[in-house]
């Protein structure tokens, strides 16, 4: 009984809150939350991205690039992981990755809009995992109209050799139409004059490598 009284007394001493002590404890809890959020406050994020899509000179390959620059101030950032995704008009996705850059490559065999997406994630010493980009944010478009049926490689594996064999192919098809690029409403549109038909889709095999 005596021990119980002692314990009750101890508990009431320690936890028994007088009217003025409740707010004090609440303030302590709030202070803890503020302390944690201050780490966020001292972090000023400044991450920029650039996406680009280009068409090879022979009109056979579409190249996508995503790059990120982190100019944030405050905490330590590490473990960058960039994912670059090139989406063809028939919704085929080609992905590449790297540290702060990523490249993608796709054969140009379908008319329509090619879209490059860049996404970055990294670790911040103050707030944990941070992500930027996404389907609605970090994109570049390349609208391609027409086709290049003469130079498509039936064997997708040969797409890797497109660049090196471009000059030879050029000699074989001297009248092949070259694409011209114009910028229309923020989109880089490349039109191949005289060609307007949709060509059969060759299942792509080359996914890209990141830097």
């Amino acid at each position, binding site marked *: 009984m005596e021990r119980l009284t002692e314990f009750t007394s101890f508990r009431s001493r320690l936890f028994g809150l007088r009217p003025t002590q409740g707010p004090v404890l609440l303030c302590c809890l709030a202070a803890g939350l503020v302390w944690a959020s201050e780490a966020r406050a001292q972090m000023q994020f400044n991450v920029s991205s650039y996406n680009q899509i280009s068409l090879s000179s022979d009109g056979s390959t579409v190249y996508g690039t995503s790059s990120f620059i982190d100019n944030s101030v405050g905490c330590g950032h590490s473990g960058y992981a960039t994912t670059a995704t090139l989406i063809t008009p028939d919704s085929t996705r080609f992905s590449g990755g790297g540290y702060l850059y990523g490249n993608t*490559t796709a054969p140009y065999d379908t008319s329509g809009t090619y879209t490059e997406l860049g996404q970055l994630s990294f670790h911040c010493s103050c707030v944990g995992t941070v992500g930027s980009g996404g389907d609605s944010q970090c994109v570049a478009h390349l609208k391609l109209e027409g086709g290049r049926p003469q130079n498509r490689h039936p064997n997708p594996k040969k797409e890797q050799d497109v660049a090196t064999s471009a000059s030879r192919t050029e000699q074989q098809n001297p009248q092949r139409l070259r694409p011209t690029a114009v910028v229309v409403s923020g989109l880089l549109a490349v039109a191949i004059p005289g060609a307007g038909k949709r060509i059969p889709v060759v299942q792509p095999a080359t996914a890209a490598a990141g830097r």
Partner: protein
Amino acid sequence: MHKRRWHLSKAYWFGLRLALSACLTFAAATVAGAQNAGSVTKLVVVVDGATNPEQIPDDLAYQHFFLAVAAHEQPSPQEVARQSAQLAPVGLAASDRQMMTRELGRMMTALEAIDAAERASDGSVTALSDLKVQRAAARARAITTVRGALSTEGASALDDYVIGIVKRGIKIYGTAN
């Protein structure tokens, strides 16, 4: 007797409560931190170059373009083809292009060494900050070297392309306030 023991010192109880408060404060901070660590902080677009290209600094646009176009010093045929496609719209003369790709190769070598050092670092804020400074310096050095070595026409063409086209493809992310 017991009463006296529990009433030993007001300072003792004050100290005990203070310690308890400190523990609660620390626990709250830890819980908040753990919640941060478990979730992903999503950055949002604060400047969109497509709509506000004037808010993208020239220097940032150059850095992004150089990063996008750079290939290794000993590039693979695929890299050469990609770089050629990316540089074609700029309209540089062959000599300017050659010089530029050479410098970008050097920049790429430097950046990859910094990336590797970052992966191997102890993760301290100081070390990461130093590497970030080195990375920025490597990019800035490439810009200075290329712009200084280009012909007048080449410099003008590059400037037109970077400011007129590249800026529109840049987005700057930050946190939502």
